[in-house]
């Protein structure tokens, strides 16, 4: 189960979401610029305020960390 916390104008958020779509992964797309409860949830989970934050089955990744995401999702490149 993948949750992505992002804002609409954040370039790395868009890169991350496009990357997941290209690799065929579904995810819950949470816009923290309008959903303030989700913003608080994101800050609590990640201990920080930067976007994007990915919650991949409970593992939290801050920013577009391509290597970590490839590892966590077992993506073959």
């Amino acid at each position, binding site marked *: 189960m993948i949750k992505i916390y992002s*804002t*609409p104008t954040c*370039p790395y958020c*868009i*890169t991350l979401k496009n990357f997941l779509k290209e690799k065929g992964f579904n995810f819950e797309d949470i816009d923290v610029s309008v959903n303030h409860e989700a913003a608080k949830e994101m800050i609590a989970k990640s201990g920080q305020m*930067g976007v994007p934050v990915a919650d991949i089955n409970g593992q939290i990744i*801050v920013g577009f960390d391509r290597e970590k995401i490839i590892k966590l999702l077992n993506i073959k490149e």
Partner: protein
Amino acid sequence: MNQNTNIYELVIVGGGPAGMSAGVYAARKKLKTLLLAKNLGGQPSEAWQIDNYLGLPAVLGIELAEKFKSHLKKFSQDIEIKEGEIVVEIKKTEQAENNLPLFNVYTEKEKFPAKALIIATGVSPKKLGIPGEEKFTNRGVVFCATCDAPLFKDKIVAVVGSGNAGLDAAIQLTSYAKKIYLLNKYPDLHKGDLSYVEKIEKSPLIGILNNALPKEIKGDKFVKSLVWENVKTKETQEIEVEGVFVEIGSAPSLHFAKQLLKYNEKNEIIINPETNATSCPGIFAAGDVTNMPYKQIIISAGEGAKAALSAYYYLTKT
């Protein structure tokens, strides 16, 4: 380390406007080209709204970056693009082919041989270098206003910097923040475009602090306050803020090519303005990483094209 036995005619390092424009030109000249970038997009992706790129008035930075990317990717049959790649070193080898020296471009895992290079690695944000900045990065200290401004809804924030990036950040924040302090180290706002200055002066949400230098960022888990000094009176004041947006300009990072290329005191690669050639024959450079004086997207795109054409003529001269 993987040894790539393909020799590229051209390797472009950097995926911003200069690198992408160079990529389009190199692809259309059918040069065997590899473009290596950490991410495609560059500085435009992090700008809010761009109103000086000819033909695209008031375009969102992210939209402009996406247009550049799709234009480049249209040529993906003719140019190899590798994202997520950071170049750690460039070396000139002892070998040559057709009298042209060969270079090796090293990432952490691979080596790419090439006959010509274009360095278009741009710049990274400058840091304040004050206590609390490292500690509170992403805990209230922000370097990408466009990314994170929405997270500061109804909060009081400070923006440090009075060039266009700082003014742009302050204006963006008026959609979210309760109050914005704009810290400007000069006596007045003369660095940015007047069109921005006018908006800032009219906004009831923005308090301009002139002659202001940030000294310390304080807080516990997240930022709670900022101490600043008046450069004239030397008085310090502490303001309660939950965000500090750092927009004080940027500088190139050249660690991978310093031993090969001549650069100036700002770490900018010195180029021949007509050909974009660097001090090392076979290596060209374009965009904000060079010593060309004006750092603008449209100029970088033009410089990338020039560099690619120069590389083409360098490679095909007999």
